[in-house]
């Protein structure tokens, strides 16, 4: 009796079986980022670049003049645990991101996506903040730390920036030392960093000489606003009205307020001393 129950029910209910919809597996692969990573060789500001991207966005960039394609593929595998294959031309969206970020070409600003999941939270936040620094301008490590609400984490910001897996596109070259020196650079040292900044129109020599005179900020005596020297608002102040300032204390004492665009801050250790 019992077995005949089972048999009847089993064959009856088996009729309700239904295969998974056709697109399910593909959709899953796409969501977990296994839908195929590719990389291209494109021109960069100081050398050709390898740029890797996948479903989650741009994932890895390296200078193509300093590593072989095989090394790059190996580095990709080591970082993400997946393989990557070379293609001749980047998809349009990726090309537009490269154009906008590396070459500053205007156009419809594509929504940028980066694969940074492999990084610790703080490092990811640092890189997303660095992304906000406009082309042709620089900000100190201390600024990034202050913006993230951790003004003392200057060194940690330095480490995070140094490990940027997507240099040139995420502009870690625009992060400099608080004393105005250009600082080190993972993708080829200070010389390369200077060259990248110069290619963006940054007047590196002036930026580096200002701190020798103790100047950190530039104020305008007409607006009574002070900025980082490379801020676009500082650059348009005419010589007659440029006021060199040593610190935000001096600036505030003289009746200046901080620029709302570049949001200048003192480096933390200086602030403690002052």
């Amino acid at each position, binding site marked *: 009796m019992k077995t005949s*129950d089972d048999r009847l029910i089993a064959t009856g209910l088996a009729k309700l*079986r239904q*295969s998974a*919809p056709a697109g399910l*597996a593909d959709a899953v692969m796409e*969501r977990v980022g296994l839908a195929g990573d590719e990389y291209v060789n494109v021109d960069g500001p100081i050398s050709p670049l390898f740029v890797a991207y996948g479903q989650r966005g741009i994932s890895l960039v390296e200078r193509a003049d300093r590593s072989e394609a095989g090394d790059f593929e190996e580095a990709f595998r080591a970082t993400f645990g997946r393989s990557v294959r070379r293609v001749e031309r980047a998809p349009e969206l990726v090309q537009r991101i490269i154009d906008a970020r590396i070459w500053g070409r205007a156009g419809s600003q594509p929504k940028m996506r980066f694969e940074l999941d492999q990084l610790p939270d703080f490092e990811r936040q640092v890189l997303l903040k660095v992304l906000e620094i406009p082309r042709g301008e620089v900000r100190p490590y201390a600024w990034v730390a202050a913006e993230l609400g951790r003004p003392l984490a200057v060194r940690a910001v330095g480490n995070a920036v140094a490990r940027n897996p997507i240099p040139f596109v995420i502009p870690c070259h625009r992060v400099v030392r608080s004393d105005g020196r250009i600082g080190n650079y993972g993708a080829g040292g200070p010389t390369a960093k200077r060259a990248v900044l110069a290619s963006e129109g940054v007047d590196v020599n002036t930026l580096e000489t200002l701190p020798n005179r103790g100047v950190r900020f530039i104020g305008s005596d007409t607006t009574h606003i002070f900025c980082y020297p490379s801020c676009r608002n500082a650059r348009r102040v005419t010589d007659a009205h440029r006021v060199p300032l040593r610190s935000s204390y001096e600036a505030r004492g003289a009746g200046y307020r901080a620029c709302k665009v570049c949001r200048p801050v003192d480096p933390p250790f200086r602030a403690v001393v002052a």
Partner: protein
Amino acid sequence: MQPEPRPACLPCVWMQMTPDPLCDRLATDVDEAFPELVVANQDLVFGVALRVVRDEHAAEDVAQEAFVRAYRALKRYPNQQVRELRLRPWLARIALNAARNELRGRRSHVDIDEAAATLAEPGDSPLRLAERSDERRTWARLLAGLPDRYRLAVALRYIDDLSYPELAETLGRPLGTVKSDVHRGTALLRAAYDAEQRALGGAQEAAS
């Protein structure tokens, strides 16, 4: 008289002792083996989701979500743990939880088993299709009439083809409990089926 020692349940022993080669590959390289895991188990995961949410579109979303969760877990688990996974019940359980989460989010109760029951299989003639959809509808309706606890156990056993040990692991209940749930559910289903046949027979006689 001494009672005989109860023999170990063979399927259980078998399940615990047979290493799954796919597990080994997942432990070595998740990304390499994961696509195969999805392809091999998508019907199961989708089926389990469908049993709970009873809507094809929602079930597809739930199945996706379940696989994404499985992927993240595989990335996180230590190698040894991945090697010892029993993939089918593990996935079925993830799907079940994802589906219950999904239901918690809404709470509208649409009976879609009816709709699902009318789905065509390729190659069916119109007449055959009509019969089949009729049969499917009947079974879907009978199943939907069971109390929740029995309905899920019976459906997972006979539609999604989970073995009793797999079912116990999926539902997180003892083997004996799921067996008795399935048997009671089956008996109820049989009774409902017989009652319906009798009623149908009676109606036909009355009509002639």
